[in-house]
């Protein structure tokens, strides 16, 4: 997944320097560095059980970060994902416990598969609201998604009066059992959530590289005016990225509720910040037009491994925050330095050649 930036650097290595190549592969290098560091510093770090556990943690952030990557590539931002996680968890929990009361003496209970679909639809719908605010009503993405952040969180709290939906085991006679599969189930020895991550990630990477929609996402972020004149349906592209981001958030909401077998309305607070951090660490440019799914996933792993590893080493959570913040800042500083160095190298060459 990371060989995309690495390959690009080989192509220009002839006119750049070794330094430039190293800077381009920085996320991957950072990943290897944290892996090596913790395998030495933290006992049991490399055990299979621990690696799987960490992957499950990372997967949650990676989902959100993928949705965020597309949004950021179009030049936007989605602050509402954390709240969508919370709200979707509540939707799933409510449906498992209460079903939908039709007010005529009947209550419909859905099976787990249907509940998952409804929850995903809710996530996509909230994404669509973001998209409509941004494309039709011209609200700045930051503000639109900030508003939705509050609304969705408020709705999540209202759905249970702030209480947790506990014990989502379901009742066999209503057909609502089996909700734990997403969070605790395993296929071929790996947790289900990892498999879902693999499927969604491959799909997203394919979309970015081989479909017109993917190409259009980059074009919109690179130059919206030019994209519009070239006939790209800019509004549709933006609708898609926010809906996809909502979808990713709904998946996370489902997985978390399933893992805990409970839905808590405050779930997902500040998740959006972790997702942005992973995307940026993976080389996504906040000004739009640049980014890869592969890079983002490596970024999510760097952040996830860093925090889990520090926990294993017994570093205080306060220090963890400081370290995480520094890593993000360094990543972006290196990113900027690389761009400057690269453009200076090419410009100087052209000046001498011309």
């Amino acid at each position: 997944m990371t060989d995309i930036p690495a390959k690009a650097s080989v192509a220009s290595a002839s006119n750049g320097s070794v330094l430039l190549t190293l800077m381009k592969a920085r996320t991957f290098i950072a990943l290897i560095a944290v892996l090596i560091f913790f395998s030495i510093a933290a006992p049991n770090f490399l055990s299979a059980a621990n690696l799987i556990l960490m992957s499950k943690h990372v997967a949650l952030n990676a989902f959100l970060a993928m949705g965020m990557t597309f949004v950021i590539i179009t030049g936007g931002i989605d602050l509402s994902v954390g709240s969508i996680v919370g709200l979707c968890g509540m939707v799933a929990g409510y449906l498992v416990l209460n079903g939908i009361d039709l007010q005529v003496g009947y209550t419909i209970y859905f099976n787990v598969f249907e509940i998952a679909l409804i929850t995903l639809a809710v996530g996509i719908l909230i994404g669509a609201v973001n998209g409509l605010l941004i494309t039709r009503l011209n609200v700045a993405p930051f503000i639109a998604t900030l508003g939705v952040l509050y609304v969705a969180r408020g709705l999540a709290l209202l759905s249970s009066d702030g209480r947790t939906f506990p014990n989502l085991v379901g009742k066999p006679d209503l057909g609502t059992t089996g909700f734990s599969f997403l969070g605790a189930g395993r296929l071929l020895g790996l947790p289900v959530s990892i498999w879902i991550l693999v499927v969604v990630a491959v799909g997203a990477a394919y979309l970015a590289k081989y479909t017109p929609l993917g190409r259009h996402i980059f074009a919109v972020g690179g130059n919206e005016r030019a994209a519009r004149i070239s006939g790209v349906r800019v509004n549709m592209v933006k609708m898609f990225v926010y809906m996809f981001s909502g979808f990713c958030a709904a998946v996370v909401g489902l997985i978390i509720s399933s893992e805990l077998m409970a839905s808590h309305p405050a779930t997902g607070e500040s998740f959006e910040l972790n997702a942005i951090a992973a995307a940026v660490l993976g080389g996504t440019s906040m000004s739009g037009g640049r980014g890869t799914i592969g890079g983002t996933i490596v970024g999510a792993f760097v952040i996830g491994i860093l925090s889990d590893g520090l926990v294993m080493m017994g570093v205080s959570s306060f220090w963890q925050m400081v370290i995480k913040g520094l890593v993000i800042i360094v990543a972006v500083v290196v990113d900027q330095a690389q761009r400057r160095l690269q453009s200076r190298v090419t410009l100087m060459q052209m000046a001498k050649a011309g």
Partner: protein
Amino acid sequence: MTAAGDQDVILKLEDVSKVYSGTVAVKRANFEVRKGAVNVLVGENGAGKSTLMKIIAGVEQPTLGRILLEGEEVSFSSSGDAVNRGIGMVFQELNLFGNLTVAENIFATREITNRFRKIDSREQERRAAEFLERLQAGIRPDMLVEDLRIGQQQLVEIAKAVSLDARILIMDEPTSALSAAEVEILFKVIADLKARGVAIVYISHRLEELIRIGDTITVLRDGRITGQEKMKNVDTQWIVRQMIGSDAKDFAKADGHVPGEEIFRAEDICLPRVTGGLAVDHVSLSLRAGEILGIYGLMGAGRSELFDCIMGRHGHATGAIFIAGKKVRERDTTRRIRRGLALIPEDRQREGLVSILSVASNLTLASLSRFVRLFHISSAKENQAVTQMVRELAIKVADPAQEVSSLSGGNQQKVVIGKALLTGPKVLLMDEPSRGIDVGAKADVFRTMRKLSRDGLGILFATSDLDEVMALSDRIAVMSNGKLTGLFDRAEATEAALVAASALGHGPVPHTESHAHD
């Protein structure tokens, strides 16, 4: 370069080069500016004049070389730096704040304040009025800039530069939107400044103008300085020779094919301006297959706006367009492209290219659906189309996967053209297709236009270059102030007639009626 006494030289550029990503704009230029004289700088579009001036004015920093101000090496990190050292500039593209008043614009960044740091608007307006008085433009200092005509805005820009009390004043095409009467006033102001010892650097395309007011002349071609002389020693022929060099403009001869049926017609296109009035004023025209219709006009005449209307970029535009006799009901750009319209926009960087994507991605951006099976882009088909376009348009690129911003201006323009052609258009709208590209690329672009018209495309192309419009068009339409003010067959068109039509509605004399034909 002549030994006219070095004490007159106030500013000197030594071996200055400026490179943008993709283009070498200025190559090892040596340039001297003299006090109390009008230093004329001339060259074709894209020769590097504006870049050279931006370097002097501190807007751009040279990639290589040094700047000497009164013998002392300086480097300006911003235009503020240059202003502090007494260098002012009238920019070609207007650098005004439309939402502020004339007085506020003139004193922007050096506001006159009272003791409590509050802006003294009354004093600003009084002083602004003095400068405006000298330009006799009938502009009040409390008017909003966005409410002014484009020519008046240019005068405000000039007043702003004059108010700096600069020792060196750079004017980049200050007359491009001025009427003849306004030009006369400007020349008086320049004579006045010259008498006070100000060094003036004057850039223009209008040779008669240069010969009239210039003292020394410097000619730029393709970023290099090709001649530097005293104005009294030179004539128009000399200037043209230095500008064009041995390789005279290659316009690609007409091949004498006869245009076919009408392929495109626009009826009564109107576009309201935000500030009131019409940017495009009841324009109707028709185009035949295989015909090149040139649209000539000055800056702000409404040519680009007309193209925008045709492409469906303005929802509030009115009027109707027809392709091959059928009315186009689609109102959005995407579907109009599918109906066979394609635009090559004037501003390559802002509207033509996605600069961080590759050459290949840019080429196929507008036509991706051609290479898609179900939802998968077939790389083979896409690459084939890219290779074919690169070859047909002679785009100089080592690898189409390169970022498009690494190409030279001319090759970037070819990419924009290639992108439009890949959509399989019936009608091609080209807005200033030769702007900012080198001589060789221009010839290629013109040759391509000829070839496309032979293949039966209808081409509408907008330009402010008289030679170009005369040499390439089968018919010539002239626009002024949003109106179509003239329509000529090539045989009957003369430069004088075109210029006269392009000035209608601009001069101090209120125009009586528009001369729009059919």
